[in-house]
């Protein structure tokens, strides 16, 4: 009997699909990936398909038509609502970033050993339901609300103001607060990545605190700012809950119009066309914002 020395038994061949690490990785994530793909793509496809059809009372006429888009783009009410939604979501995004940047900056540069704790504290409001947070803004901004009471108490106003709630500003305030965390985190990450020696180098070359912020820190954190803007802008365009609860008549946004078409209006194709239009417009706006910011950052010398 001979004994083979130094030779390992051959490992059973793996199925061809799993031979390389890359393929194994793909196989590992494919269930989730397929699930996400189907759940994302299917509804979008359904919406896109509907947008080219026509509602005839209870049934849907499946002949191709662009009528819905014509209405969505030319009907003044939809144009106005879309414009208003866009302007509002852009305002929310810019305001959020403007307010989030100093917070992120403070945590990153002056947080010291409390960085993790501070980040943790910032996420706390997000623990409660979104609805509850919107409702609490109603309590703050309302006629007998916290803000009015405080202003009355300090004698700044003589009678409660109705200017705080049920208008665009209320939507702006509520959304800015709700999305603050999502803006702080990406900006914080990009600030953390800024090599502190670069800031020292800037000051070595003669720049004071403001100039070195504008010439080094800010341009290097543009990716974080862009991420924050997009993360806030895109979901807020289609926000439905906040305008509904605190927006009043002025605060109505495109999502409300879409809702009406899918429910009371019973015109799914028009609702679908409005949705698709909104998606396209927000994509274009977001991409232009990114381009504009990159360009602006490139101009800083």
């Amino acid at each position, binding site marked *: 009997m001979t004994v083979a020395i130094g030779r390992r038994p051959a490992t059973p061949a793996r199925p061809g699909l799993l031979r390389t690490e890359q393929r194994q990785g793909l196989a590992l994530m494919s269930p989730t990936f397929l699930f996400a793909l189907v759940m994302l793509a299917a509804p979008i496809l359904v919406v896109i398909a509907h947008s080219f059809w026509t509602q005839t009372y209870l049934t849907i006429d499946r002949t191709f038509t662009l009528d819905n888009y014509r209405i969505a783009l030319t009907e003044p009410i939809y144009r106005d609502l879309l414009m208003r939604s866009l302007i509002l979501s852009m305002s929310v995004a810019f305001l959020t970033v403007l307010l989030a940047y100093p917070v992120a900056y403070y945590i990153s540069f002056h947080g010291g050993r409390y960085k993790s704790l501070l980040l943790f504290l910032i996420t706390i409001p997000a623990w409660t339901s979104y609805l509850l947070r919107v409702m609490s803004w109603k309590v703050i901004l309302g006629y007998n609300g916290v803000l009015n009471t405080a202003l009355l108490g300090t004698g700044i106003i003589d009678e409660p103001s109705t200017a705080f709630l049920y208008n665009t500003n209320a939507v702006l305030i509520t959304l800015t607060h709700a999305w603050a965390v999502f803006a702080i985190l990406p900006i914080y990450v990009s600030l953390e990545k800024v090599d502190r020696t*670069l800031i020292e180098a800037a*000051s*070595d070359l003669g720049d004071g605190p403001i100039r070195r912020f504008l010439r*080094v820190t800010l341009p290097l954190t543009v990716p974080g700012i862009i991420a924050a803007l997009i993360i806030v802008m895109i979901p807020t365009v289609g926000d439905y809950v906040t305008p509904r609860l605190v927006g009043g008549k002025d605060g109505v946004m495109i999502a409300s119009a879409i809702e009406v078409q899918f429910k009371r209006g019973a015109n799914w194709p028009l609702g679908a066309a409005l949705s698709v239009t909104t998606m396209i417009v927000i994509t274009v706006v977001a991409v232009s914002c990114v381009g504009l910011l990159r360009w602006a950052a490139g101009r800083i010398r």
Partner: protein
Amino acid sequence: MPDRPMIEIASVTRTYGKFNALDDASLSIRPGEFFSLLGPSGCGKTTLLRMIGGFDTPTSGTITIDGQPMLGIPANRRPTNMVFQSYAIFPHLDVEQNVAYGLKRLRLDPAEERRRIDEALAQVSLAGFGKRRATELSGGQRQRVALARALVMRPKVLLLDEPLSALDKKLREQMQVELRTLQKAVGITFVLVTHDQYEALAMSDRIAVMFGGRIAQVAAPKDIYQRPVNRQVADFLGGMNFIQAALVGENGTAIEVETMGFGRVTTPKPAQWSGKGGAVTIGIRPERLRVLWDQETARHELSGTVVDRHYFGEITHLVVAIPGMDAPLSVTETNDFGADDIPVGAQIRIAYEPDALVAMAD
């Protein structure tokens, strides 16, 4: 006033909590000098450099640059520029914009600005690289950009924080020569921080050797190498044979000692001579001991047995046991006469000059 020091460091101490990063350091650096702060990591050399540049503040003591006290003056208003260890090249700017960074604030005439940028890039042999992005440069090129960016500001003092440590050996040696040449050409005072003794010896006019937050010795490279004040300095700068000796007599400038092996020796008093106790350490560098071949004789010689040998290409280290001495001597011999062929166990004679023997303070 040509005799006024460019940098005057007076009793500077820097403490972090209970840790003394720098302990009562005093130093005077001359205008146009290439000065090195040499020491192991944690000796306080970088702390001192950063305090000169304005990136750290002394806990006590004063720093004066060109006659001007630096207390409360931030980095951006000091007449110094720094080449950072990581180079700190702005990644969002190209080479030219990096070099122009500090000039922008001066609001120069565009033609003048252009001229100064080109001049600085030429000084570091980077002409034509202006439009490259920082991310497209090699380590050596990044180092040159950092140098150009600082030089273009025409500082009174250029601070270099281990600028060559990230480069490979060959490039490092080339840059040592270039830096030295550049410094002579521009005439700016250079203060270099390094832990590499060869770098310090090769480039500096003077060196301050630091240990544990204290300045142990300040001297020209040759003096610091040949006449180290204590064992620590001697050891840090290269191989040294330490020989125990007993004090026999002393006068104002010299001491006479009785050594094992080397007999009675008279040598200059070390700088920090305490004069206490009878025991003295005498040192001699391994390369100051020379192998005697065949019938060759010398005025001062020792004989012993080779107990170990280490081959280093152009040189061989021989470890030689000398009868009557408690520790063997290290002898470095170049291999041009065949020192690499001397076997372990061989009886050899070695020659030395008594003036190569140096007394140390501890």
